[in-house]
C-alpha cells in the first residue's frame, strides 16, 4: 500500500479549519511525507492482536449529585451571553 493522496481541504473542512493556499500546499507536502513514513505499519502482521487493551473494571460514579458551578462561574468565560444563555450566531441546518 502506498501513501494515499489526501484532499487536504476536505479533511480540514471536517475539522472545521480553513487553510490558506500557502498552508494547503505546505501541509499537503508535509503530510504525504509523514504518511509515507507511516506506511511501515502496513507490513506488521497484527492478525491475532486484540485491538484495544483488555478490559478492567474501572471506578464508576455513584448516582449522587455533586455541586455544579455557579451560573456566574459557568458563564464567566462565555464570549457572548444573555439571560443566562450562551449566545452564538445563527445556527443554519
Amino acid at each position, binding site marked *: 500500500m502506498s501513501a494515499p493522496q489526501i484532499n487536504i481541504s476536505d479533511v480540514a473542512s471536517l475539522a472545521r479549519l480553513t487553510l490558506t493556499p500557502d498552508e494547503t500546499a505546505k501541509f499537503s507536502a508535509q503530510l504525504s511525507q509523514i504518511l509515507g513514513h507511516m506506511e511501515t505499519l502496513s507490513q506488521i502482521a497484527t492478525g491475532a492482536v486484540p485491538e484495544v*487493551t483488555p478490559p*478492567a473494571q474501572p471506578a464508576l460514579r455513584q448516582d449522587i*449529585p455533586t455541586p455544579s458551578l455557579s451560573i456566574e462561574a459557568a458563564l464567566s468565560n462565555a464570549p457572548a451571553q444573555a439571560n443566562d444563555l450562551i*449566545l452564538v450566531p445563527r445556527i443554519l441546518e
Partner: protein
Amino acid sequence: MSTPAKWEAVIGLEVHVQLLTQTKMFCGCTNHYGDAPTSHVCPVCLGLPGSLPVPNEEAIRLTLLTGLMLGCNLAPVARFDRKNYFYPDMPKNYQISQYDDPLCAGGLVPLDPFLFPKEIQDTAEAKAGRSIRLTRIHLEEDVAKSFHFEDRSGIDFNRAGTPLMEIVSEADLRTPGEAFSFLGSLRQVLLAGHVSHADMEKGQMRCDVNVSIRPIGQKEFGTKVELKNLNSTSGVRRALTYEIARQIAACEKGEAIAHETRRWDDQAGATFTMRTKEKAHDYRYFPDPDLLPVRTDQGLLEAARTRLPELPTVLQSRLIQAFGVTAYQASVLGADRVLCAYFEKAAAQAKSKATVANWILNDFLSTQPDPATTPILPEFFGELADLVADGTINSAQAKKVFAELMANPASPREIVKRLGLAQISDVSALGTYCDEAIAANPRSVEDYRAGKTNAINALKGFVMKKSQGKANPLQVDEILKAKLSA
C-alpha cells in the same frame, strides 16, 4: 393504474429515552429539567479544557435492566466511543456514545393489540400479535437545548450530558398503527422498570423514523426517508400515514424517492424536506480513551437483574387468568401499575373479581381518581361487587351506592344501611307486590297470557315502583311468571 394496496411500507424506529437518574451521564450535575438556564453545569458537561468524564453506574444499570426486560443479549464488556461532529449544542464537539460494543444487542418489543390506535384495535392488524425485533440499545449523552432568535441562538447547557438511552428497532414495522403500538408497548416496559417516564410530549422519549415503501412481495428495500420533529405517538402515526401516501403517490407517478431527511409539520399535517443525504456524515467513531471498558459481569448485571419487574405481557396474562378480566381490561390495568395494584387489592377477597374490574375501570376511572391517594379504599369495590353478587342490592341500587361512595367515602355495607337500600328478597313480601301488580294491570296479564311475553315488563315496573326499587328483580321475574302461568 395500480391501486395503493399493492404497496407496503417498511418502517424502523430510533427511540431516544431519558433515564431516571439523579445525575448526568458523566458528571455529578443534577439531571433535572425546567430549572434556571446554566444552573446544572460543571467543567465536564460544559466541555471545559481538561475535564474528564466518569460514567454514571446507575445509567448503565438502567440500560442493562431495559435489555433484560426486552430480552436483549447483554455485553459482558461494553465500550464508549466518540462520535465526532460539530454542533453548538454539543460542548466537546463529539458525543460520547457507543458504537462497536453497545450494552445490549437484539431483543423484542411485543406489540400490545390494545395499544394500537382505538379505532383499529378490532382489526387483524392489531390482533396479529407481532413482536418487533430490536437491533441494539446503547447509552450516550444528550446535547444542550438551543433557543433560536432572529439572528442568533442561545444555548442552555443544563440538558447537556444527561443520560440518553437509544433503542434502535429493525425495519420490521409495516404500518403507522404498528409504529404507534410499538412506542406505547415500549413505554409500558420502560415504566414497569422505572427506567424512564418515557412521555414523548415532554421530550422524555424522542423518536426518529425511517420509512420506505416497496411493492408487496419485493424483498429489496426502497429508498429510505428519515422523519424528524415527531413529538407525540399520534404525531408519529400521522406523519407516517402522510409520508407513506406521499411516497406511494410519487412512485405511482414514476418519480424517484429522494434519500433525505424530512421534517414533520404537525400544524400543516405534512412532511417537508430538511436536508438531502448526498454526503454521508463521517463521524470518525473511535473508542473514547478517557473511559476504560465497562465490565457488566462484575456486579452491574446482577444488580440490574434484582430490579426486574413483572413485564406487561406477563402481568396481563396473570390478570386474565387470576381475575377473569378481559384482555382489554388487562391492557388498561397493565398500563397503570398504581391502578393495577389498587385493582388487585380490591379484587383479592371479592367473589366476583370480574365485576370489581368493571367497577374500577368503568365507573371509578371516569371520576379521574388518583389511585395512589384516593380515600376510597380498594376493598370497598370488592364489597360493592359482593353486595350485588349475593343479592343484597341490585345493580340500580349499586349505582346509588357508588355515587354515595364517591361523595362520602365509607364502606358500601354502611352506605346500604345508611340509605336503607337493602334489596327485598323476602318471597312473601315480593308475592304481595306481585299480586297487587296482577290485580292492577288486567290488560298486561291478558296480553302475557295471549303470548306477548314482553307484557311482563309492565308488571315488573309496577313492583319496582311499589317497592321503591328495592325488590330483587330476578326473584320478581320468577314469582310473576309462576303466578301468571298458574
